[in-house]
C-alpha cells in the first residue's frame, strides 16, 4: 500500500478516513490535525499556560510531544498513585514520564499521593467501602482532585489530557447505556472552567483512534509504559472498547461517527434540558479550599479523612 501523498510505502492505513500514509507524512499529519482540533473546539492558544496530565502511557506522552512541536508551552503533571504489586506500575510509569521530560527539557510536576495523604491508592482502597472491589473509584476521585488543585493553584489556564477517540467512545457508550444525561451533558472535547475554582479541561486527541497515537509513538521513538495498571484488568472501559472495535472492523468509521454524531446532537441542545444540570451553588471545602457543593468538606477530603481514621484505628 502506498502513501496518499507520495510514492513511499505506507506505514498506517486509516480506514475511517480512507487514508494511508508513509512515516514522514503521518508524522506531520497528526500534529496538523491536532492543531485543527485545538482551534476548532477553542481549547487554548499559544498565550495560555497549559498543564498536561502525564501518565507515562502513550497518549499523554505523545500529546506532550505534539504540543511542543506545535509551539505550545506546556508543563507536565505526574500523579504518583503508589500502585505496585508484582509489577511496579507507578514507579515504572514515573520513570517514563521523567525520561521524556528530561530529554525534552520540560518541566514535570510530581504529586505523590502517599506523601500528600499518608497512604497509597491501594492502601486507601483496602480501607474504605468505596474501594471494596476496585481502587478505580478512589483513584479517579484522587486524580481529578489533584489535577484541578495543581492546575488552579499553579495559575494554569487549561488542563489537557491525552484521552483518545476510543476512550471517549467507550465513555459515551457507557453513559448512553445507562442514559446518564448529566454525564452526557458534560462529556466533550472541552469542559469550561469556572472562576470558583474549576480549571478548564481539554482533550486535543479526542478524535484520534488509539492505534493512531500508538503508531505515532512508535514512529517518533517515544518510549512509554506498555504494561497496564494491574487494576485495569477487566475494566468496563476495555470491554466497551472491544465491542466498539468489533463494529469498527465490520464498518470502518463507526466509532468516530458515534462520537461525532453525539457532539452534533449535543450542540443542537439534546442534553441541555436536564434538571440535574441546574448548577448547585459551590462553596469552598473547609479543609482544602477546593470548590464543592457539600456543606463542609469535599468528597476528596471526606474520603481521605476516613482512610486516616481507619489507619489510626488499626
Amino acid at each position, binding site marked *: 500500500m502506498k502513501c496518499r501523498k507520495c510514492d513511499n510505502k505506507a506505514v498506517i492505513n486509516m480506514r475511517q478516513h480512507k487514508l494511508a500514509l508513509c512515516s514522514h507524512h503521518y508524522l506531520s499529519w497528526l500534529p496538523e490535525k491536532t492543531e485543527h482540533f485545538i482551534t476548532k473546539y477553542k481549547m487554548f492558544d499559544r498565550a495560555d499556560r497549559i498543564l498536561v496530565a502525564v501518565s507515562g502511557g*502513550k497518549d499523554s506522552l505523545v500529546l506532550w510531544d505534539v504540543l511542543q512541536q506545535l509551539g505550545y508551552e506546556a508543563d507536565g503533571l505526574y500523579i504518583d498513585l503508589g500502585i505496585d504489586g508484582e509489577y511496579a506500575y507507578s514507579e515504572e510509569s514515573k520513570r517514563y514520564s521523567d525520561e521524556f521530560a528530561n530529554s525534552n527539557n520540560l518541566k514535570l510536576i510530581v504529586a505523590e499521593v502517599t506523601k500528600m495523604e499518608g497512604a497509597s491508592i491501594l492502601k486507601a482502597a483496602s480501607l474504605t467501602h468505596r474501594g471494596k472491589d476496585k481502587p478505580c473509584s478512589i483513584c479517579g476521585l484522587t486524580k481529578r482532585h489533584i489535577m484541578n488543585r495543581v492546575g488552579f493553584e499553579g495559575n494554569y489556564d487549561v488542563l489537557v489530557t491525552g484521552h483518545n477517540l476510543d476512550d471517549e467512545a467507550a465513555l459515551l457508550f457507557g453513559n448512553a447505556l445507562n442514559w446518564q444525561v448529566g454525564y452526557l451533558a458534560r462529556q466533550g472535547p472541552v469542559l469550561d472552567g469556572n472562576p470558583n475554582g474549576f480549571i478548564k479541561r481539554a482533550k486535543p486527541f479526542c478524535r484520534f483512534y488509539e492505534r493512531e497515537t*500508538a503508531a505515532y509513538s*512508535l514512529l517518533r521513538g517515544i518510549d512509554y509504559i506498555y504494561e497496564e495498571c494491574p487494576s485495569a484488568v477487566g475494566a468496563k472501559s*476495555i470491554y466497551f*472498547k472491544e465491542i466498539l*472495535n468489533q463494529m*469498527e*472492523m465490520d464498518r470502518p468509521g463507526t466509532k468516530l461517527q458515534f462520537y461525532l454524531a453525539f457532539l452534533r446532537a449535543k450542540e443542537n441542545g439534546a442534553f441541555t434540558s436536564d434538571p440535574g444540570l441546574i448548577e448547585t451553588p459551590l462553596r469552598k471545602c473547609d479543609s482544602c479550599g477546593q470548590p464543592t457543593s457539600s456543606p463542609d468538606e469535599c468528597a476528596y477530603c471526606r474520603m481521605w479523612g476516613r482512610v486516616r481514621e481507619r489507619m489510626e484505628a488499626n
Partner: protein
Amino acid sequence: MTVRMILRKKVYEVKAGMTIRDAILKLDIMPESVLPVKNGELLTDDEILKDGDEIRLVAVISGG
C-alpha cells in the same frame, strides 16, 4: 518454515502467503486493537507474510 506472530507474551505460528490482516483474524485478534511491526518497522496489514517473518503485534488498547 512458518511465520511467528508475537502478542505480549504469546507466540503464534501461522502460514506464510496470507496477509497480516487475514492472519490476525485467523488468530481471533481484533485488527483494530494491534499494530503490526516487523524488524522495528510499522506495517500496513495488507502486507503478505513471508516464510521466516517475525511480526510483533503491539497492543494499543489501554484502559482503566
